């Protein structure tokens, strides 16, 4: 029971590797003491599920919202196939003459402006950007682009993201030019969250494992439903 609890706990904790190992060791020692004393179940009840424990026990690293420019570069890397398809189709459409059939980014349209080849290209590129990259991000909060740029996506409460969050936050990509409405929200809040970051309770931050931050610990008497952000 302790081992499986700790495995789940590790999955949800967001911290640099050294601190993460320290939290694991401390929680394990605590649970083993409780087991020896015969009140392990009581302790587990107080801790809550592993994500709850990770939310309140583990993460004390103050997380820094990622700079917008770095996020844009990371996004360009991650969505390169989609960008290539979108721009390629748009350019071909322009060269074909009016009407312009494709906007940037491209979107799937249920009409006769898209032939099968175009549709497959857009669907394939979107599937990679939304589902493929979303699932990759769920594993560690990092996409290829984010890993290169030292960024990580976390839940707004400071724990790791779940699969639903990783995929759903990318849905705006399927909306064509309306994705820019999603992006506008970045300038409207201090955590630099897009609209779908707000809806999925996610934040893109500097990777705590690489940013070398010295972490002041938040006041536990503060509302724990949101993390203190720097």
């Amino acid at each position, binding site marked *: 029971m302790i081992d499986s609890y700790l495995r789940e706990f590790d999955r949800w904790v967001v911290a640099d590797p050294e601190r993460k190992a320290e939290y694991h*060791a*401390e929680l394990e*020692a*605590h649970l*083993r*003491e*409780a087991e020896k*004393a015969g009140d392990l179940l009581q*302790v587990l009840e*107080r*801790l*809550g599920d592993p994500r*709850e*424990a990770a*939310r*309140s*026990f583990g993460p*004390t690293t103050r997380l820094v919202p990622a700079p917008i420019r770095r996020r844009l570069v990371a996004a360009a890397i991650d969505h390169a196939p989609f960008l290539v398809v979108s721009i390629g189709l748009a350019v071909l459409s322009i060269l074909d003459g009016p009407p312009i059939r494709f906007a940037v980014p491209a979107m799937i349209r249920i009409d006769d402006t898209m032939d099968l080849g175009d549709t497959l290209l857009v669907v394939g590129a979107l599937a990679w950007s939304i589902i493929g990259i979303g699932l990759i991000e769920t594993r560690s909060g990092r996409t290829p682009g984010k890993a290169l740029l030292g960024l990580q996506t976390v839940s707004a409460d400071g724990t790791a993201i779940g699969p639903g969050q990783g995929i759903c936050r990318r849905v705006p990509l399927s909306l064509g030019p309306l994705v820019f409405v999603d992006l506008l929200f970045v300038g409207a809040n201090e955590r630099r969250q897009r609209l779908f970051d707000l809806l999925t309770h996610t934040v893109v931050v500097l990777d705590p494992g690489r940013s070398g931050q*010295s*972490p*002041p*610990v*938040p*006041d*536990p*008497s503060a509302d724990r439903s949101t993390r203190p952000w720097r």
Partner: protein
Amino acid sequence: MEDAIRRELARGTIELVLLALLASGSRYGYQIISELNNLTESTPEIKEGTLYPVLHRLEDAGHVVSSWEAHDRTPPRKYYQLTTVGRARLSALRAEWDRLTKGIRKVLDLEGAET
């Protein structure tokens, strides 16, 4: 209702309680929770989710230091110990606590006198 009141009143005092406990000797996390929860009925139950963030914060602020120690044949435990800076912090919190409770008592006595 009583639990909710106790929790609310205890929310701002956990740091004072922890520092005061550690002033009498180093302790590890499970030991701290067991002692505090067995202290009296009038103290609200301390949860791990409250204790460890405070301990880590106190450590980052230099008020406590931690070390892993194994005694006899027990597995290693992470002990927390008060530092000199922590003792000064405890004195300051104690003085503030005394001042606050004295002031509140005066107001409560006023209210009692009126009724």
